[in-house]
């Protein structure tokens, strides 16, 4: 039923959203690209001039870029490993017929709904504080010296709090995938004498592969731009120890007012995210019967 009138109605009705998104993303992105080729500092207005790739050269050869790229990759990689493995284990755990499963599931997914600033400050002050934090008490009870997380291992501290926030997401998606696993297949394998480990590696894990891919891709996109957790706990420091690309771009733009340099950094971040986004969009597109 694709009459001309209905097609027209379809265009008219979908146009506002498409135009709004276009103005919101494509136009500013074009401006960022343009700024990235300018010498443009908010402290010296009126001095803008075209300088080609100089901003990129500065950004990409700055040691701060390598430090923050390394931090970004370590942060994303570590959180992915923790949440995917943890998510599979907790998903398997919640998939059993245990007492109070509904309530338990609510407890496990709760961290996802905590706003990032609360997450970061509760972990920093109530749990990881070296003098009065809960972890310090555990260390001392076990006879160890308490760890001063934000001095000795600041990036690890950020990784732990971000992983805590994303573990529920991985768990929920992997649990959903686990629940769609065909039970007969597993029973047949059991009758053929397969143990729980063999069943996990030959039946469960292959069934989960798609969901795991989705978790990895979506988490990567969000984890590349972790910001608030760093902003309220370490401010990127000590030194550059917890500065990721997103935070580096922020400091260049809103603290050093270097619009040109920050724009070049922003474009680098966009390219990094797009490498992941291409795979994700393809995967979703394959699954979409529009």
């Amino acid at each position, binding site marked *: 039923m*694709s009459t001309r009138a209905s097609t027209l109605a379809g265009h008219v009705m*979908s146009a506002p959203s498409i135009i709004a998104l276009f103005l919101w993303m494509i136009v500013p992105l074009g401006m960022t690209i343009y700024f990235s080729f300018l010498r443009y500092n908010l402290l010296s207005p009126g001095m803008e001039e075209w300088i080609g790739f100089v901003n990129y050269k500065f950004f990409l050869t700055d040691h701060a870029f390598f430090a923050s790229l390394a931090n970004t990759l370590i942060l994303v990689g570590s959180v992915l490993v923790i949440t995917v493995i943890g998510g599979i284990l907790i998903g398997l755990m919640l998939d059993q017929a245990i007492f109070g499963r509904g309530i*338990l599931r609510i407890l496990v997914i709760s961290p996802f709904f905590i*706003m990032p600033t*609360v997450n970061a*400050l509760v972990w920093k002050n109530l749990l990881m504080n070296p003098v009065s934090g809960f972890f310090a008490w555990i260390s001392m009870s076990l006879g160890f010296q308490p760890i001063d997380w934000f001095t000795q291992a600041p990036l690890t501290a950020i990784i732990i709090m971000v992983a805590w926030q994303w573990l529920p997401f991985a768990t929920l998606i992997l649990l959903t995938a686990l629940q769609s696993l065909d039970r007969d297949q597993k029973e047949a394998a059991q009758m053929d004498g397969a143990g729980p480990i063999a069943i996990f590696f030959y039946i469960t894990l292959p069934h989960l592969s798609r969901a795991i891919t989705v978790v990895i891709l979506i988490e990567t996109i969000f984890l590349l731009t972790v*910001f608030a957790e760093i902003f309220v706990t370490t401010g990127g420091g000590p030194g550059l120890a917890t500065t990721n690309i997103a935070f580096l771009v922020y400091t260049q733009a809103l603290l050093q007012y270097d619009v040109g340099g920050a724009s070049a950094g*922003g474009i680098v971040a966009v390219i990094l995210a797009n490498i992941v986004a291409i795979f994700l969009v393809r995967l979703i597109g394959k*699954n979409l019967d529009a």
Partner: protein
Amino acid sequence: METNFKSPTGKIAYSVFAWIVGLAIFFPILWMALTSFKSEIDAVNMPPLFFDFNWTLENYTGILEQSNYFKFAMNSIILSFGSTIIGLVFAVTCAWAMAFNPTKRTKDTLLWMLSTKMMPPVGVLVPIYLMFRDWGLLDSRFGLIMVLFLMNLPIMVWMLYTYFKEIPKDILEAARMDGATLPKEIFFVLLPMAVPGIASTMLLNIILAWNEAFWTLNLTTSDAAPLTAFIASYSSPEGLFWAKLSAASTLAVAPILVVGWFSQKQLVRGLTFGAVK
């Protein structure tokens, strides 16, 4: 794929183990809530006090007496509901068009919309910030509502699209045959059938907008600042107000936690864009 335990003892032992793991994950939230009822001195006591402290509401009364707490809370409500309602108007019409009047380009358009969601916000931070500065939108609720609405629009369109696809097209066509105009078709035929889907789309959007902490921190200073920014103000090193921080945090997360518990199933649909069922 659910395992049934062979013996009741096995089930009990396994349940105990699972509850220990679950409580460990939930512990930071529980600890925050407990600390919010302590005095500042009890909050930093070593060893930590679990239940045997003087329970007090002074942190809550202290925060609620601060006149500006309500301003932040009100901003959170205005921003999350405002962006959700505007988003709904745009997303319902767009999803209607895509679900019931698809063209060859519908699929590509949907995927393009999604890809805008994958753009890192730092990629557009500079121009958005400068435009907001020039247009006087910095620290304005209107500006932030627009940002939050546009940020979540792809997810809303996508979720509504998947819900609308489940509604039989024949029903809408029958209404059209009976002479229903387009607005009537959408308002009186489509929307009543899609109420559960619309409700869960709204819930997810409110959660995402409530917790958004990149644009709210970068584009506000005081007038339009929501609870995310209010909590961030506790990060300054002067003084140790951890019991107050806990009370403020508990108040900030409690409503959205409850909303989240109700919408956990829809979360998977909304955040994976239908890639996991």
